[in-house]
Each structure stands twice: as C-alpha cells, then as structure tokens.
C-alpha cells in the first residue's frame, strides 16, 4: 500500500515539474506582451520630501503677539474681571504694541483668552486679554540677560551664548529696573547721536521717570559717549558701545525676552 502511494506521489511531482518547465519555456500570451510593451517607465519625481520633521525643542521659545486694538487687560480670563491695565495698539514710537504670551485659557463661554506680560507700571504686571484683541503669534528663540552687577549683557539663542557685551546702566537713584521684560520695537536712522545708531524699546519702565515725554520706557541703545561704557551713568536705559549695539541688532529680533537682574 505504502509503495503504491509513494509511486503515485513521485508520478504527480514528475507531471507538475514537466508542466512548469514547459510554461517557463513558452512565451507569454500576446495580450500580456502588448501590455508590457505599452507601459512607460515611471516618471522620476523632481523631489522627495524626506522623513517627517518632528517638532523641535520648545525649551527656549517665546511667543509674542501684536495688539490689534486698545483693550483692557483683566486679572482673570473673564470680561467681568477687574481691569489690570489698558493696552494701546501702538507704542509712543508709533510702532505696533506687542505683548509676550505667558499662558492661554478660556472663559465660561468657551472663548479663548491670553495671559500676557504688560508694559506698564508696576513692572511685572500681567493680565488676560481676549484672543481676538491680539494678532497672529510670532516666536523667537533668543533671550537677552542684562547683569546689572557685572555691567554685562548676554544674548542667547536657543540657550547658547551669541554675544556678550559691556553695558552702562542707571546711576544711583535712577536704577535700571530689575525683572522680566521684552523688546517692543527697534528704532534706526533717527537724528539723535546720544542714542547711537540703533535703539531697542523694551517693556520695562522707570518708576522714577514717569513724567518722561514717552512714559519713561527703558531702552537698549548705542551712545555718543563710549568711554562711559561700562558704568552706572544713565537714567535707567541700557547703553552699549555702537559696534556692540549694531551687532546686537543683527541678532536680536523684536519680541525677545529681556531679563534684567
């Protein structure tokens, strides 16, 4: 019995092998041959995007937004909350007013609000504004740290030092305010040598210079008295040598957070 089964199996294998050999040797049917000849080669794409790009590190990222219209910043994300300060749409220099974004939230009706740093006295004041009062977000990965004790400013990008420069700060009685601020605007080509070639406006305000024509905002600017840098000679502003402020202007965008310590 077993011998008969083995013989049948050997026979079947032989038959299938013969069929396979015959098929391999014969040409494909005409219809298949025509299709093969008609198919053009695929067109090579001019570019391929490569792998997906995951979100980069946000550790050193700061978001800011322009103020669309005058709005009351409130202590909570609620139209009925106490007003903390009024935010104007423009700065005294005629540029768009900016705020740095600290947090976001929604009110009871589900409308988005944004928690922002305010350029008002007392320094360090924050408040909530409706999202619709602000324009589109922009981001920066730079930060300027001004060390008043060492009379030195250091610009960081993505956490790495880009520039370190000596500075002059406020004289005794006109101390440069300490805290967390941000760059609001950049002025150039004005006619005032005492500010050097470039001046940055910040959100910091001198508590003592409130009667200053433009409200006593602290600037970061060049100078026509470079021999006084480093030193404690200003009315609160941060002065740099002109070569340093020009280099800073190339690297520091508006919206950059400024730590004065």
């Amino acid at each position, binding site marked *: 019995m077993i011998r008969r089964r083995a013989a049948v199996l050997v026979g079947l294998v032989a038959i299938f092998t013969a069929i396979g050999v015959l098929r391999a040797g014969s040409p494909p049917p005409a219809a298949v041959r025509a299709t093969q000849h008609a198919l053009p080669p695929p067109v090579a794409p001019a570019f391929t995007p490569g792998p997906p790009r995951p979100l980069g590190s946000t550790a050193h990222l700061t978001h800011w937004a322009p103020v669309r219209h005058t709005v009351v910043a409130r202590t909570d994300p609620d139209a009925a909350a106490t007003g903390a300060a009024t935010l104007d749409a423009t700065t005294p220099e005629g540029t768009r007013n900016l705020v740095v974004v600290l947090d976001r939230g929604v009110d009871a009706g589900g409308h988005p609000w944004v928690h922002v740093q305010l350029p008002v006295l007392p320094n360090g004041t924050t408040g909530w504004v409706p999202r619709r009062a602000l324009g589109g977000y922009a981001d920066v990965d730079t930060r300027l740290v001004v060390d008043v004790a060492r009379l030195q400013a250091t610009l960081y990008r993505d956490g790495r030092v880009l520039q370190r420069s000596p500075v002059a700060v*406020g004289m005794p009685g006109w101390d440069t305010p300490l805290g967390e601020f941000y760059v609001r605007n*950049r002025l150039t080509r*004005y006619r005032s040598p005492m500010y050097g070639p470039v001046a940055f406006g910040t959100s910091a305000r001198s508590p003592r210079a409130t009667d200053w024509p433009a409200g006593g905002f602290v*600037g970061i600017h060049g100078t026509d008295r470079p021999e006084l840098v480093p030193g404690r000679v200003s009315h609160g502003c941060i002065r740099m040598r002109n070569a340093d402020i020009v280099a800073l202007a190339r690297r520091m965008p508006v919206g950059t957070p400024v730590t004065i310590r």
Partner: protein
Amino acid sequence: MRELTLKDVDRDEALTEAVAELCGSSRAEFLRTAALGSAAMLGALATPAPASAAVSDVDILNFGLLFERLQATFYTQADELGTVASMSAAKQRWAETLGAHERAHVRIIKQVLGPRAGPRPAFDFGDANETDAAFTKTAVAMEDLTVALLTGVTPQVHDRGLTAALMGLLTVEARHAAWARNIIHETPAPQAFDEPRTLHSVRGTIARTRFVVARPKTGSHRTPGYTG
C-alpha cells in the same frame, strides 16, 4: 451622522465671503450649509480659470510653498502653544503627524525653489488653533482645500518630474484629509471624484480667511524717547 459644513469652520464668515466673491452670493449661501467636501460643494466651487492665466512652474511651486507654510505654521503653533497637548491621544498623534509632514513639505519646496522662494509671510489664525474644536474643524477644511488645490494645479505643471513630485504630495494630502475627517467621525471619502480648484480660486479663499497678514510694524525712524 451630521456632515461638516462650511458654516462650522468659517472664521468670521471669511470663507463664505470668499466663496460669495468667487461664485456669487446666492451660491455662497447654498454652500454655507452644503457638506464640506461634498460633490455639490466642490462642483459649485469649481470656478473657471481666468482667461490666459499662464502660470509658471515657479509660480505654482511658490503658491504651494505659501500654502504649506500656512499649514505647517497652523499645526506647529497649535503644538507649541499646547492646543495639541489638550487633545485625546489619537488626535495628538494625528495633529503631530500632519505637522511633521507639512514641515517636511515646506523644507523641500524651499530647497527646490532656492533663491526664487517667496519670503515667509506672517500668519494670524485668530481663534482657529486655540481650542481642540476650532483646530480640528479648520484642519479638516484646510486639508480638503489642499487636495482640491493640488488636483487643480498639478496638471498645469510643465516639468514632468515636478508633476510626479506634486502627485506624491497630493496623495499624502488626500490621506491627511481622510484621516482628519475620520478623526471627527465624518465620512473620510465623501464623494467619488475630487473636483479640482484653480489656483486663482484657492488664492481667493485663502485671502478671505485673513490667515495671511502683513507683518506688524515693529520698526521706526522716530527719535527715541527712552530714559537715556
């Protein structure tokens, strides 16, 4: 299951205004309640191309770059600001993947265009990427619009290699659109045919969303009034 409509995603009725300008107000009113991506809607949106609208491959790629930048910024901001983190795990994966794809698209199109790449515009998405609901609805509309745009402009590209590359983007964007619709339990493929849209009509729609804005004026030549 209720279909998603233009009214659901229309920020300040900007998209409806754009459609009204392109198609007339009566059609816009109809479209407002038509299902997004439906054959009726896309068919009505298929406006004729402006006469002798000869666009170069560079024009098309630059518009593609603008659109990819818009999408990449939309997803990236939502991720950076925490909107994505507030979503369910499945939606986070979806939003992060789409963002990563759009960033890759921006990079390659910029590389291809080189010095002919247009400058990066400023964007203002308003409330559209602030909350889970607004983000999702806007993402669905943008992905549908991208598919319609690429379907419309890809055959106009002269270079065959570029056409092949854009086809590669188109199929991925179509997957994005289907994934986006699936995430919100809408029909992933609502019609049997994707009606193409002209570059002109998509440009009009984008303009009316007011997502692309002028950069805020942050510089001046006024004499500083700082404390000195």
